[in-house]
């Protein structure tokens, strides 16, 4: 830690993935999520696979844990489907992964694509029975004349095997594309949100779900906004928020009504008239919303900024951080190449003091809420030296470009960091850069 100010100095820890000129579309990472104690890190990709990394469990008491993440399990979560009725393809891309809190030696996670949520159980097996009477070790049957004695099979240790099995499949509840899932603090229910509806499920029941939000108008011509993200409150099991494409966040309380179409609170910032443009509404669309760990605050990510909201104040955010303001003048070309519709995620640090979000050119941004300092770092294989603090990157907008700066026009808009995750208690971050996963640690 730098002189006790609490400022972060990030070092490269690991990178997962291959260097390829042509990235296979199926390898593009589409979500990243730590579990509740940070021992496991799950990633989902466009090919419908989930890869789980586990932190190294070397015990070095007193020393700073090296704590590298290695592959623990991988499985195919979703397969491509075809909807015969509408002649549509359903992508197998994993949109979200959410872990359940651990209640027994197994790990559970929910993964979802556009239409179906699945509950997966991940278990370890490190011993197997040996010494059967009727079969040889290889599986062939023993001839009955060879069997002269009876023995009881015993469990012998074996190489660790991690098994993933689907335990529940929650399907057929969404007409539109599921964009979020969120597990309730009661660990028994969860919600899934698509563009117009939010459903509440019980983890044990797969053939029914409650619809708790429905913003579909009777006349579709009147449709003005869609739901973009939704999350349960971390401790209050009756509250949740959902964000919209118009830049509003609605807090709902399930105790008030069965159908929470009427919000309890709406968080909306009045628009700044000076910045109004043709693209104002598009860039105000919220792509991600996250509660702080203490449940008091929210962060929302729209195209150009991250805003911190206090749940007690709905008139305006308490803090606004500009992610890449230099893109405001480029909105037209970003609209042309569809980048303006990119959905970036945001993350809190474990102590709710820092916020992180991604940008283009494999840059990601960190904001310290206390010191109000911000940092731009790059996820690149060029900075892989150990214990080297990542250099801050600067983008030059004006005519004069300083030595280390990169000009806006040189930014690579294909290298976007949409998915990031922060370890729940330590300062370790996982950053997904297309098909590579970077892990950075705070230097201590």
């Amino acid at each position, binding site marked *: 830690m730098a002189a006790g100010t609490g400022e972060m100095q990030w070092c490269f*820890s690991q990178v*997962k993935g291959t260097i390829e000129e042509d990235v296979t579309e*199926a390898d593009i990472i589409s979500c990243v999520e730590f579990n509740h104690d940070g021992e496991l890190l799950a990633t989902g990709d466009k090919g419908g696979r989930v890869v789980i990394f586990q932190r190294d469990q070397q015990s070095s008491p007193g020393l700073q844990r090296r704590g590298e993440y290695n592959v623990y399990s991988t499985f195919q979560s979703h397969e*491509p489907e075809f909807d015969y009725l509408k002649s549509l393809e359903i992508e197998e891309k994993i949109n979200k992964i959410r872990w359940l809190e651990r209640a027994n030696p197994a790990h559970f996670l929910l993964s979802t694509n556009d239409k179906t949520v699945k509950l997966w159980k991940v278990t370890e097996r490190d011993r197997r029975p040996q010494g059967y009477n009727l079969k040889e070790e290889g*599986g062939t049957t023993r001839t009955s004349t060879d069997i002269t004695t009876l023995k009881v099979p015993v469990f012998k240790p074996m190489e660790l*095997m991690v098994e993933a099995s689907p335990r529940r499949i929650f399907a057929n509840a969404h007409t539109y594309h599921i964009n979020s899932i969120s597990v309730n603090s009661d660990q028994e229910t969860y919600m899934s949100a698509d563009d117009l509806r939010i459903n509440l499920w019980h983890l044990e029941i797969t053939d029914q779900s409650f619809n708790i939000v429905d913003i579909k108008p009777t006349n*579709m011509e009147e449709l003005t906004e869609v739901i973009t993200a939704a999350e349960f409150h971390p401790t209050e099991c009756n509250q949740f928020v959902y964000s919209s494409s118009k830049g509003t966040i609605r807090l709902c309380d399930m105790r008030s009504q069965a159908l929470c179409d009427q919000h309890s609170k709406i968080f909306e910032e009045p628009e700044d008239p000076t910045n109004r443009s043709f693209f104002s509404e598009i860039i105000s669309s919220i792509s991600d919303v996250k509660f702080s760990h203490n449940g008091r605050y929210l962060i929302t990510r729209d195209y150009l900024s991250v805003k911190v909201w206090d749940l007690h104040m709905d008139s305006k955010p308490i803090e606004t951080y500009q992610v890449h303001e230099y893109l405001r003048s480029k909105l037209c070309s970003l609209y042309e190449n569809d980048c303006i519709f990119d959905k970036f995620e945001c993350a809190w640090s474990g102590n709710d003091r820092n916020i992180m979000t991604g940008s283009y050119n494999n840059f990601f941004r960190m904001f310290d809420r206390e010191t109000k300092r911000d940092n731009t770092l790059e996820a690149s294989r060029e900075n892989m030296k150990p214990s080297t603090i990542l250099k801050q990157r600067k983008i030059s907008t004006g005519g004069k470009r300083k030595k280390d700066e990169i000009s806006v026009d040189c930014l690579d808009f294909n290298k976007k960091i949409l998915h990031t995750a922060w370890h729940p208690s330590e300062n370790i971050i996982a950053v997904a850069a297309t098909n590579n996963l970077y892990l950075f640690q705070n230097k201590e």
Partner: protein
Amino acid sequence: MEVDPPQASDPLPGARNGGLKRCNSAPMINLIPDTSSSFTPVSQPLSSSHNATAPLISPVSRPLERQRTLSASSTSLNITTPPIRIPSRLIQIKQEETTNVVNREVAHEREVQSSMQIAQSWDEFSLEDSMMTEAKRPRSFSEQLHIFTSPFPLSSSPSPTRVGKQCFSPSAGLPIKDHTLHTSPTPSPTRRSFVRRSLSPIAMRPNAVGMKRKLDTELCEYISPAKRFNNGPFTPERLLTHHPLMNSISSSSFEDSDPNGARESNNSSTSSFVSNDSGTSMTPQTCFTFCPVQNNRNSESQNSEMTDVSEPEQTRQDDSGNRPQKPTPKTIFKFGQARETQV
């Protein structure tokens, strides 16, 4: 009919442009103000040149699919209309919902008609007579028609999920397929699937009705879902081999006394999986990797431009009537055997 936004010239393609388009049943026609009612066949093959996991469509085409194929090979396409995109979900949904069902049906019919015209006109493009005869695939009267519904009936949902556990060995870095080691040799009476035992062609299923349709999917855990038309990169194969995220470079490797740079640690090894990081040697008894059958289906299916919707998964007769190469008896799948005896 020119319906598409420019693709090839775009220097900064968004993720959306070349990639798989999401469910969008709205025909692009509605977005174009000056829609012409006549269809001129677009000069491009019906089979998707897109090498992603786009399903290979038969004459039943979809406006979405068309859009995707066009965007993949748009070099010949003359783009005159302004770029029309619907990346915003709001607009997409509005389109889908407000389109009159009748209009949508009519438009869909037109699509089908035009694509059939294209498919038929493509036959006339061959340069030599010999190519002509080979290009025409015999119609499938002699082949059995297979209609696959949900291949995984265990769960009542339509979402295909592999039956049973997917096992992975962290030290070897490869998914493990052989279950005889790890499951009890006497299967539980409540289990529906059967352990691979003898290669008897006699049907093992008690339910004769379900036999033809289900095709022992429970035994073949890596059979890809039947709904797949395309034979692009199969998900089973992708998983069976080394997942790209298993390639790892750590900063700790720089700190070791290895001066030659990064020690790239692969959780899996490419040749044999005996070597691993922990250095424990594997006894032969535990080396039961299930080597996947070299799938002929990839190369087979790509030959044909018009694959039947009901194409069976593994074995398929090609035009000359020769069977594709049979896998070795050890790794043969159950239903492969069954097919042989049927014919």
